[in-house]
């Protein structure tokens, strides 16, 4: 019985993990290329969640079609914040970019709060579910998982098969080297920031497809923290590392939930959060380059 429950939860964890991974790729991409930690990461996820919510509740557009809308909004926000804020700060000390991205996050939260209010919202997109015997998986979750994998594959192809992607890889490896090869490094920074934010806003759509409730302007905070743990798991600068970090994190979170639920007098959800940060500390202490970095 317990093993069935565990196996079922692990499947859920794998599905959620793919979405977590996708939700961290933007953070890792921006860190890898610009060496900037986007503290406002979760706020961009929240924007994606509100895009989904609004399109569905107000216009009846299903979340799958919210994906391209969120991507475009994210790209636009990325370019906007790069050229208005980040560009000037990129050579400044780290504290400047930390404060700036924190401020951008607050700005987004308060703007959304002005428009939509601060209560918790949700939507109900019922498209049926599939019974796997050990667990029941709604199609919405399955779509979100497939969407995450598809986006990760597209990003991989972009990085390895296109000229712009090659330029990005070269900047990740050595920006000065890229510059002497004639790569427009400033342009790569702008594009990478935009794509990073685009991915992050899009992940907000996918996350609400997994958890379609609890949408409110301040929902991003917990995702920022999770994304940091996942990014560190995956070696920080690699979007694919982040994706696999997400899978690992999803499995651990869901697996440990099942086990913690067996303990008397504990709130298993609170303990999984404790576990994730204990993990972050441990990784930073033992393997600061990330679990998945072989070199």
């Amino acid at each position, binding site marked *: 019985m317990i093993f069935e429950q565990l196996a079922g939860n692990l499947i859920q964890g794998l599905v959620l993990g793919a979405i977590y991974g996708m939700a961290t790729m933007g953070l890792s991409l921006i860190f890898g290329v610009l060496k900037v930690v986007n503290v406002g990461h979760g706020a961009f996820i929240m924007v994606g969640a509100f895009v989904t919510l609004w399109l569905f509740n107000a216009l009846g557009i299903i979340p799958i079609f919210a994906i391209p809308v969120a991507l475009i909004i994210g790209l636009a926000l990325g370019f906007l914040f790069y050229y208005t804020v980040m560009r000037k700060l990129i050579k400044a000390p780290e504290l400047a970019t930390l404060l700036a991205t924190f401020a951008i996050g607050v700005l987004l939260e308060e703007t959304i709060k002005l428009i939509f209010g601060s209560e918790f919202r949700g939507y109900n997109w019922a498209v049926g579910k599939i019974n796997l015997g050990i667990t029941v998986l709604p199609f919405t979750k399955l779509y979100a998982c497939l969407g995450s994998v598809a986006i990760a594959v597209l990003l991989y192809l972009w990085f390895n098969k296109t*000229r712009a992607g090659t330029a990005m890889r070269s900047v990740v490896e050595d920006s000065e080297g*890229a510059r002497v090869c004639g790569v427009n*490094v*400033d342009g790569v920074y702008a594009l990478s920031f935009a794509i990073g934010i685009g991915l992050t806003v899009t992940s907000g759509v996918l996350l609400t497809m997994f958890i379609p409730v609890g949408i409110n302007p301040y929902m991003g905070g917990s995702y920022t923290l999770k994304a940091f743990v996942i990014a560190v798991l995956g070696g920080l600068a690699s979007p694919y590392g982040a994706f696999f970090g997400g899978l690992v994190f999803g499995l651990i979170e869901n697996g440990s939930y099942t086990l913690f639920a067996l303990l008397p007098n504990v709130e298993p959800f609170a303990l999984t959060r404790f576990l994730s940060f204990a993990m972050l500390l441990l990784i930073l202490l033992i393997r600061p380059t990330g679990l998945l970095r072989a070199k």
Partner: protein
Amino acid sequence: MLRVENLESGYGPMQVLWKPSLEVKKGSITSLLGPNGVGKSTLLRTVLGSVQPWKGKITYEGIDVTLLPTHKKVDLGITLVPEGKHLFVGMTVQENLIMGAYRKEALKDKDDTLELVYSLFPVLKERGKQAAGSLSGGEQQMVTIARALMTKPKLIMMDEPSQGLAPKLVGEVFETIEKLNTEIGLTILLVEQNAEASLKAADYVYIMHEGRIKTEGPAKEIAESSDIREAYLGI
């Protein structure tokens, strides 16, 4: 070919270049000498645009390129072999070289340039599939020079290309530099700490001190002037 007039630049509030002026004639090897930390690297990086010029003027083949972004300068045929290599260590040798042909102009002739580069550095062809980071220091320096050649430059600036290399390899690097000049007709602006070898290779020499050009002259004259050698080069 390249003319730098009263250039001023630096990092943050710290001024490094105090109006040096110099000229690099087409087809020449021009050497910029001087002790560590006098602004030689900063001058090269300002010419390429990875450090922003504050004041002064940079002209290349008659065009004012002072404020042109770096990638546009690479399009015009200027490139830099940076100090400390700056290779893409996670990529293979061949991928590094192909990155050099990133600009559209260079990409067109990628295969021909690659063949030329491999004929100059046969060992790189053998190492083509290896990660650049796994090569020895001397080989990595070759990749850096080869990668710069892949941009199809007319003017190639080299920042300490012999730094950290064994004496035998230093000789090879200088041989390569002379070969690039005589056989391919590249114009070279060379920054070096190895004054003796540079004086031999160069046609014309500028000596830099504290962000300023202190003296200049044909390499032979500088080499023969014991005053200059003693005062600025310590040899």
